[in-house]
């Protein structure tokens, strides 16, 4: 059994593949710390050493590595499947086993269908209508001739002129807010974005936010937000102490 024997030498783990699997299932090792690509490379190297091809081993390995990848993906994107991310390790293992079982059953069903197709290859039947079948006739209930006049009148009605007023929405230039925020930061080391733009119309607030992102991109400011929809704190970059950098990094991860 090549899959069980597979010896791994990874940064986070050293030992056989099935031990890694056991530790992951028991939540004693975090999947996010494991470079699964290294596991794949190790497997392929072992395969290359062999004379024959172990198809069964390949199949088993693929299913296991795919399951691990799925679990890892879920762990990396908790918002994508919250209910799964919240599973206890025990339940996650249960879920993994359940899915493997379901997939196995469907594979067996597909194999049954394949056999069936081979067995039925001498059954021929007509696809499509018979050459001399009667043509189905579509019948229409009696209609009012007034409908015809109404249809033409509708075609003869000039279309209502469409108002384009909403297109005239004017946005202030981003540069206006860049200048404004820079001058505020020249005076103050920190300011509260929400308070700064509170008096502006929503479209202007949107442009102001773009300016904020621009300032962050150029490294002039650091941003902090304690929670979604909480006020955004803007601080001058030269001031950012270690703590502020950390918070900003967290903010980046959340918003990435």
């Amino acid at each position, binding site marked *: 059994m090549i899959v069980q024997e597979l010896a791994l030498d990874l940064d986070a783990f050293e030992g056989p593949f099935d031990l890694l699997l056991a530790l992951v299932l028991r939540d004693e090792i975090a999947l996010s710390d494991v470079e699964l690509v290294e596991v794949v490379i190790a497997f392929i190297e072992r395969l290359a050493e062999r004379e024959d091809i172990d198809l069964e081993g390949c199949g088993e390995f693929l299913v296991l590595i795919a399951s691990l990848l799925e679990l890892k993906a879920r762990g990396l994107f908790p918002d994508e499947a919250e209910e799964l991310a919240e599973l206890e390790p025990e339940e996650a293992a249960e879920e993994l086993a359940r899915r493997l079982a379901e997939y196995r059953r469907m594979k067996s069903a597909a194999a049954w269908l394949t056999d069936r197709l081979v067995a039925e290859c001498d059954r021929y039947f*007509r696809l499509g209508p018979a050459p001399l079948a009667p043509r189905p006739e579509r019948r229409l209930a009696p209609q009012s001739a007034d409908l015809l006049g109404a249809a033409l*009148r509708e*075609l003869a009605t000039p279309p209502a002129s469409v108002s384009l007023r909403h297109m005239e929405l004017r946005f202030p230039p981003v540069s206006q807010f860049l200048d404004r925020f820079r001058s505020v930061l020249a005076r103050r080391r920190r300011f509260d974005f929400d308070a700064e733009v509170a008096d502006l119309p929503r479209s202007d607030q949107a442009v102001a936010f773009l300016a904020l992102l621009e300032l962050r991109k150029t490294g002039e400011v650091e941003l902090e937000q304690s929670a979604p929809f909480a006020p955004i704190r803007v601080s001058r970059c030269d001031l950012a102490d270690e703590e502020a950098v950390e918070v900003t990094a967290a903010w980046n991860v959340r918003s990435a």
Partner: protein
Amino acid sequence: MERPLRLVQAGPPVAQLARTVEALLVVASQPLSVADLAAAAADDADRIEEALAVVGARFAEGESGIVLEQVAGGYAFRAAREAAEACGRLFERPVERGLSQAALETLAIAAYLGPCSRPDIARVRGVAADSVVANLVERGLLAEAGRSDDAGAVQYRTTPLFERVFGLESLAALPRLDDLGGDAAEIRERLEQLSQSRGA
């Protein structure tokens, strides 16, 4: 011309070949010629003709609900005449209550403005008319009415069935549209202008 003598490979008995012909005909969605049948059965045209005679006797009117018929393209099975009523019920569709707006507009144009081509109809409605016209022809509400002199496009007119469905003795009985213009040409011009402004 004398036929050359030849050693005939026995081949399957005609009864078996007849079964093969039956099988081919029941799967086909087009009539099959003797050549088609011979190629598929890998047998002689002569023997196929013999087999067809056997099949024809088995599937004859009065004998069977399936009847072998020789048509332009070759041979095909059809339903026996005695089953015509039952087949009619099988293919009967429920009565449709109304027409789509596109169909109604197209019929109105052909009825009020006289025979017109698909490009004419498209010009007035502002959208392509090909599928709606094809559909109305298939349903017997529009029919081809020759080609226009200038462009050579096929023209379409409304049919007697159209008049029956809309309860009209003739096209002269259509409700008048004095509010839209004096005559068909005037209405047409007006509609085409509007459709252009709509498309713009």
